[in-house]
């Protein structure tokens, strides 16, 4: 594997990690608000908080890791995306800042107000919505290079139907992934009040998820023909597999069986679709300006980054294992029994 493929695979994997953990976090924020609003928070919110409290900062790092790594492996992306995305990226930053700090204010600062929960819930949907537009932008047509600058065609993006279907996909996916995870967590906690309610959420969002998925998939044909052709060229099976995993997950939940395996199926559903999408997007990071083969950083830096990455993983995997063992796989903690 050449270094640019390795680099983009690492980055794409981290972004996948972010997709999963952030979806859980974002969706949980929305559900926390929704439960509170419908006065059912006594059923669910203790459960949600018990999972979220120790891990929210870890979630954020996945994102930082991705964009720092992107600039490291493909410095041109700093130039193109940096110049073009000043406004949308700044808005995402403000939303992330509000979300993260208000979470801490509400949770650690014991200011349990409806307004903070609202901010926390609303940003949970707005952030993925705004972030997902980068996927559409990367397929080309919304960034124009002129002689000495790079221009972002914001109005074009705003009035583009396909771009809105991607936004919709991001939002329903967040709610779907999150509900599926919380269902597993609630079941593990043997929380009989929360489980049926969360199961309803999970089933409710599965329909829209698959509908919007199909819409995005077929919308690609008109939006980015090059990408669509790459998929049809022998790479459609990624998405068929994704659909299969979706069916497994929903069937299990419907039959009230094995919520753990159901969540694994959800992760696989998104994994194959995500990597299929990424694989067929290559060699472009930003069509047609950033081609991984031309934009890759010099070889010395690339190998240094890979070495650091490997050492970093050796350090992180045991640490991640530890935090998961303590807060996700420790039955006493999950059930809220152990003293904190």
């Amino acid at each position, binding site marked *: 594997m050449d270094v640019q493929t390795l680099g983009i695979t690492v980055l794409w994997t981290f972004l996948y990690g972010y997709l999963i953990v952030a979806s859980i976090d974002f969706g949980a924020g929305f559900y926390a608000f929704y439960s509170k609003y419908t006065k059912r928070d006594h059923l669910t919110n203790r459960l949600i908080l018990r999972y979220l409290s120790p891990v929210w900062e870890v979630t954020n790092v996945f994102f930082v890791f991705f964009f720092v790594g992107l600039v490291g492996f493909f410095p041109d992306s700093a130039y193109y995306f940096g110049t073009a*995305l000043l406004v949308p990226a700044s808005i995402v930053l403000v939303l992330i800042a509000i979300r993260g700090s208000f979470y801490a204010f509400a949770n650690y600062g014991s200011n349990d107000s409806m307004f903070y929960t609202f901010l926390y819930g609303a940003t949970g949907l707005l952030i993925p919505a705004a972030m997902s537009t980068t996927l559409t932008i990367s397929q080309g047509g919304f960034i124009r290079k002129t002689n000495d600058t790079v221009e972002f065609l914001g109005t074009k993006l705003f009035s583009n139907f396909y771009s809105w279907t991607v936004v919709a996909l991001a939002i329903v996916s967040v709610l779907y992934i999150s509900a599926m995870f919380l269902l597993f967590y609630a079941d593990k906690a043997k929380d009989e009040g929360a489980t049926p309610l969360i199961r309803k959420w999970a089933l409710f969002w599965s329909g829209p998820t698959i509908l919007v998925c199909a819409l995005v998939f077929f919308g690609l044909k008109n939006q980015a023909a090059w990408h669509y052709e790459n998929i049809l060229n022998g790479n459609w099976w990624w998405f068929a597999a994704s659909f299969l995993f979706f069916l497994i997950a929903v069937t299990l939940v419907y039959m009230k069986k094995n919520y753990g395996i159901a969540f694994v199926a959800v992760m696989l559903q998104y994994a194959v679709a995500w990597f299929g999408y990424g694989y067929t997007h290559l060699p472009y990071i930003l069509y047609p300006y950033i081609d991984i083969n031309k934009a890759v950083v010099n070889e010395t830096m690339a190998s240094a980054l890979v070495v650091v990455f490997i050492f970093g993983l050796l350090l992180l995997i045991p640490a991640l294992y530890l935090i998961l063992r303590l807060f996700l796989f420790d039955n006493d903690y999950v059930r809220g029994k152990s003293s904190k």
Partner: protein
Amino acid sequence: MFNDPVVLSRLLTGLTLAFHIIFATIGVGVPLMVLAAEFIGLKRKDPDYILLARRWTRGYVVTVAVGVVTGTAIGLQLSLLWPSLMQVAGQTIALPLFMETFAFFFEAIFLGIYLYTWDRFKNPWLHWLIGIPVVIGATASAFFITTVNSFMNSPEGFKIVNGTLTQIEPLKAMFNTATPTKATHVIVSAYLTVAFILAAIAAFHLLRKKTLSAAETAYHKKALRLTVMAGLIFAFSTALVGDFSGKYLAKYQPEKLAAAEWHFDTTSEAELIFGGILDQQEDGSYEIKGAVKIPYALSILAGGAPNTEVIGLNEFAKEDQAPLIVHYFFDIMVSIGMYLTAISALFILAFRLKKLNPYNKWILRGVFIGGPLAMISIEAGWMYAEIGRQPWTLYGIMRTADAATTSTAVGPMLILFSALYLLLGTICTVVLLRMFKKNTVGKELQELAENHHARGEAMFVDDNK
């Protein structure tokens, strides 16, 4: 000026950094102090120190959250506002940037564990051990990110041939000439600042002694002794490293030192100029008025001997000189550093010699203002570091004006982020104040005393409250 993307990008970056550095400094220093307190508490079996560690941690998580989100902001803003700089940085200095995310990842994971496992282990030392990766991660983050700033001052580890970058050596770029002094200076001064902020809190409570119970007074005195002792150690270290930084500048970035010292003509036996104002003469030269002049001091700072030749600003072209205002930032930084050394030394001496009451009202007041002053010193130090490097963003390689974005939307973003920081700063302060007012030391100490017979689980109040 206000529609110039370069000026606006500098303002926005400066604003984000000025806000972020408060929380970043707290983030680097507090874990160390928490671990010190928990160590003493476990060693001496003194619950006061454990309570101290727990209360500091509780405040810390709120500031960490703001640190994390503003750190994310500056991380992304670098690419958004300085795309051309980051294009070069990606090729040359990406390594420590990448490492920093790992260090932070590591810290975040263990902080999560540390926060929620106070009473989870049978052996309390296990909990203390979990704090060690937090300290290492926090300090390593500071180190890695400062190497990037050092690189901006001393870009090494690459060559430019016909406009393209070649012969790239990532490790040499990371461990450049400026790295040793700069990284140590940043880390030690963060420890110093945090020690003083925590000391200021203790001093504040002791100054309102009348309302304190005996147990509370004892608690705050312990906090004060620990933090001021740490403050003294770090104040001396900071002064020492600061001296090395001066020598680094004199040798490698002489115009930066000269701008800070208003040192115009190259001379040996150079005097150090403190304060004063500049009066521009008709021929464009400057006359310094009202300054305190310390003979030989600049030569000693620059080279360790009174006869060291110090290069003056006039040796450099006008367009390569930094703004002369940095003189004041430098003076503020140094004089606060000296003040902190003096006041902590006074307290410790009084405590050891027992001739003077260390809890004397005036010493307490002196320690109290040390907290905010230390933070001002951090701000002034960074303003000197960044404005003093101008007109360069990469010293000698890339000018700031050539690195900025060409986007016309920086102005509105500046307003947006100003509003954000104002909001976060205000609410963070309110939340912290309310948090500690609601759950006072007195209340917690009382709960401690009541539960004294049942050591272990019930010993401490729930941190989640």
